[in-house]
């Protein structure tokens, strides 16, 4: 089955998703699952009264079935007791949509997981802001606090060949893919300044957010700097000069290689 061969019901929920949005209030909990790296991420908000789901909303970044399954699950469990809602399975969501293409079944997993996570958080008394600040269960990983202490193998091997501890002339980095390691305001400012020289300036941080002052944070938001959060550089790779950085994705506990021409760790 082709991935785009969705049932009419799936397409209808994608076109007109129910219960989109967020909730606030003392009885609200949220379940967040997925990772933008994988192409889908979901927040499901529940407002609980007398152990029942009084109101439910969602926000989803993802493909057609990710949107449709989140929409469908909010309809399915509205008004249910928490125990009833916990019994709603991945299969139930797919069935309610008259089926999903096999390759898309993982999306229905996400919607059910997000709902279950929200109920779990409500029962544990975890507030939405804390729930969204904590990595989801399977991806729990201790995040190193002190960024500058990150140990990277073979830095010196690429000294002057893509690895720099200071940058005197920004124009030398024109059109290069530059990754600046987050070591505070100066690093963030360097990344911002670099956007005049290249379309690709990345600020890599091991934290959820760069460790910068509020003023620099807002400048960063307005700039074209791409922030790569929860990423720990492990090793520099390349044939004679830097070409890739091996990165540990702290949120998914996975490793991948990021293409880059320049890596800057300010002194």
């Amino acid at each position: 089955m082709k991935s785009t061969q969705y049932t009419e019901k799936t397409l209808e929920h994608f076109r007109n998703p129910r219960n989109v949005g967020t909730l606030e209030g003392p009885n609200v909990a949220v379940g967040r699952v997925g990772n933008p790296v994988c192409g889908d991420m979901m927040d499901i908000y529940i407002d609980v009264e007398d152990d029942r789901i009084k109101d439910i909303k969602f926000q989803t970044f993802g493909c057609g079935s990710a949107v449709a399954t989140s929409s469908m699950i909010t309809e399915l469990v509205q008004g249910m007791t928490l125990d009833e809602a916990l019994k709603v399975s991945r299969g139930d969501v797919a069935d309610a949509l008259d089926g999903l293409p096999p390759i898309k079944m993982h999306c229905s997993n996400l919607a059910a997981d997000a709902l279950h996570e929200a109920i779990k958080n409500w029962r544990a008394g975890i507030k939405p802001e804390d729930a969204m600040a904590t990595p989801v269960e399977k991806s729990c990983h201790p995040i190193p606090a002190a960024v500058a202490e990150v140990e990277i193998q073979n830095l010196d091997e690429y000294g002057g060949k893509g690895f720099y501890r200071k940058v005197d002339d920004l124009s030398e980095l024109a059109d290069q893919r530059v990754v600046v390691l987050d070591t505070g305001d100066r690093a963030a400012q360097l990344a911002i300044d670099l956007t005049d020289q290249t379309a690709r300036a990345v600020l890599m941080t091991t934290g959820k957010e760069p460790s910068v002052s509020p003023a620099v944070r807002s400048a960063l938001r307005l700039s074209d700097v791409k922030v790569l959060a929860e990423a720990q550089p492990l090793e520099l790779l390349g044939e004679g000069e830097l070409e890739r950085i091996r990165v540990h994705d702290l949120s998914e506990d996975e490793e991948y290689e990021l293409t880059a021409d320049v890596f800057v760790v300010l002194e």
Partner: protein
Amino acid sequence: MSPADPGEALAREHIVYADYQSAKPLDPRVVTAMLPYFTEKFGNAASLHGVGDVATAALEEARARVAAFFGAEPREIVFTSGATEASNLALVGYALRNRRKGDHVIISEAEHISILNIAKYLEKNGFRVTRLPIDLYGRVSAKKLRARITDETILVSVQWASSEIGTVQPIAEIAEMLEGTGIALHSDAVAAEGLMPIDTGVVPVSLLSLSSNDLYGPRGLGALYVRQGVQVAPVLLGGGQERGLRSGSEDLASIVGMAEAADILGAEMGVEVSRIQAIRDRLAERVLAEIPDSHLNGHPEQRLPNNAHFRFDAVEGEAMVLSLRDGGIAASTGSACSSKTLEPSHTLLSCGLLHEEAHGSLEFTFGRWSREDDVERIMAALPGVIARLRALSPLYKTTAPAAT
């Protein structure tokens, strides 16, 4: 009965077709040229009788026309079942035939999935394959290539242009660098053919993968250009057609179709390409100006004239394509959710994009029946699609939370 005009058919269905990279309609003139070869001139070029002679004459005449379009000699053209087969013959055939010279092959990271998988097959069969990185814009560098060449290197494969992000490779520079080294250069020209001049007399490549459909000819046909003197072993064995390099009776009707398609482009390409490029330029200009947090992927100048490849922050590609489909617009994406592997485009990742950015890509490719009006239709739909999906997305923080 003459074949329907693709432009009229699309207009009747009210469809904006902006996915010429995936499939092109046949030019009705091509279909007309092919028709006699199904029923009247149906012979087999291998037969010794008069009916066979008619076929032989038509086959060789068509071969000469295809060769001329690519600045080649007729004997340098081998017809295949498509560009995928041509690339198999080029890479596997060349590597096997020249194994005694070395076991090292270099391919670029921007290559089409077919080339990547052929390279994996070579690795399984004892060859060493090096992958050549690309820059921010998707281009390979001759300098980085040079650094990877060893005494064992026998073959380099670099596409003429990317079918995905449209970036054109410095193929002339690479060909010049490799000339006289004894290292063969293969180029997959499928994305570029019909959109820019490809002249083997000017750019000395050794092997060139070609597709008929990309010239508005029939699908199921392609060709491999094999420069005179370049030795290739066949990968499809049988009756020894195509100078022994590709067995199986030639698909004469399709071959005549490809020749006709090449002739039409030979006469009309200049005018056609400027017209298509104006449409593309207009779309790129409007998208980047009118849709916030939109970006162009690929090289700003060194790119195919029909290709506009964007990414939009916090929006996923398949969701965009599905939404545009509802508005009668046919586009494509490099998002994982549209592929079989759930991995986003390798080309975008090699350009240095993060996974979540690569998931948010949207590609428009224009062609012979594209109209200026298509841009208006796309721009009537696209900003709304992006806004709606961003309202759904937990990643897009600069807008207020959506309410139902």
